[in-house]
């Protein structure tokens, strides 16, 4: 697992209060990990903070699963 993927997982576990085993690439924030709309806003903000980038709203909307977050950040961060 890349360093970025590890950081993303850590943020998700911390913010959503879920177990590491639940954070699979296919897991959807809202459907599988119990996030509501405020939780997803917070996640995006934490990604922005951690990786020091700005994620535009229209792109943020397309980040709905763990895998999508990892690949977006691998592409745009670092």
């Amino acid at each position, binding site marked *: 697992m890349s360093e970025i993927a590890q950081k993303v997982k850590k943020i998700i576990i911390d*913010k*959503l*209060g*879920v177990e590491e085993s639940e954070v699979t690439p296919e897991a959807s924030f809202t459907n599988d990990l*119990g996030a509501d709309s*405020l939780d997803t*806003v*917070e996640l995006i*903000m934490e990604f*922005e*903070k951690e990786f020091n980038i700005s994620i535009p709203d229209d792109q943020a909307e397309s980040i709905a699963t763990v895998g999508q977050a990892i690949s977006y950040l691998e592409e745009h961060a670092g």
Partner: protein
Amino acid sequence: MELKRVVVTGLGALTPIGNNLEEYWKSLEEGVSGAAPITKFDAEKFRTKFACEVKSFDVHDHIHRKDARKMDIFTQYAMVVAEEAMKDSGLDLEKINLARAGVIWGSGIGGLKTFHDEVTEFASGDGTPRYNPFFIPKMIADLSAGHISIRFGLMGPNFATVSACASSTNALVDSFNYIRLGKADIFVTGGSEAAVVESGIGGFNALKALSERNDDPTTASRPFDKNRDGFVLGEGAGALILEELEHAKARGAKIYAEILGGGMSADAHHITAPHPEGLGAKNVMIDALNDSGVKPEEVDYINVHGTSTPLGDMSEVKAIQEVFGAHAYNLNISSTKSMTGHLLGAAGAVESIACIMAIQKGIIPPTINHFTDDETFDNKLNFTFNKAQKRDVKVALSNTFGFGGHNFSILLRKYEE
């Protein structure tokens, strides 16, 4: 319209001297001080370096991490005591009409730590706003009432009372009145506060409201002592389940006490100083007596606001003597803030609980830390100094006064058929 009778059927407490009802009462009886050096932040540069903090408390023993992080500490405290009081009441949520069960919850300030942390983070950044989406819903003072309703599915009247240090007595009086008027059967009510934060201590220090007895914190809260020098900031929460009498009887509930009346008044004098003659304090006690139809001579115990400030203690005593006349000498008066410190918006809830337990146990909790008489007080008054006293308490009155000049009193009586 015939007014309904209102009784107390459940209690919960999280205080600097005990993390549940039983521990709280034991410490009240034994005269334990909750004051100690501040652990929540480095207070080295502050004029006051001590407070009455809640101790040995891990929120995750009570609330799931996922939920706890969306709550400010004042709401976490609220959830813990609401849970204890609900359990204590024996209410079965499947059997009650949830649309007639409400929440009225007091907090003087709300999420001060959340506000402090978020603004500090913004101010130390480069001006890019990165406020957390939970910032506002953690901070605002009404969110404890909201969270409690969500937790238990209570869909009746729901709001917060904000009247500084009178906030939770305000909540109790409002809840009492709504049940009395037939607007609801049940309320989860009380209050919570968590202001032991840099801006809380610093803000009250700037007002010269806090004791600065840093060399001896446990004796700093000394209401009615000649050398009192301000209040000691406390934190915590108290919850009460109020219920319409017939509703409580129908389910065979344990009844702690009956609420007979609530008093409300304003000083209309100054934002922080009490009226020098105690006019608002006098009026609020008279209002509570009138509302309940109880004669002054029937009152056994007054749990006073008594914060240990030079002016406040004096004006409250003046008011008591004017309202009760010669009967003032027969009263037991005590300030449990001598032990708990001042819980601000939660004070009224935990002090009403002290009154209810005094009625239940026949014991008046003391005003601890009395060393030197203040000759301005009539020495025939019984302030229950230093040791608890036995007394069959039929009627108890709890006073709370807040910055802004808000005054609330609540009158409680031993339950009789």
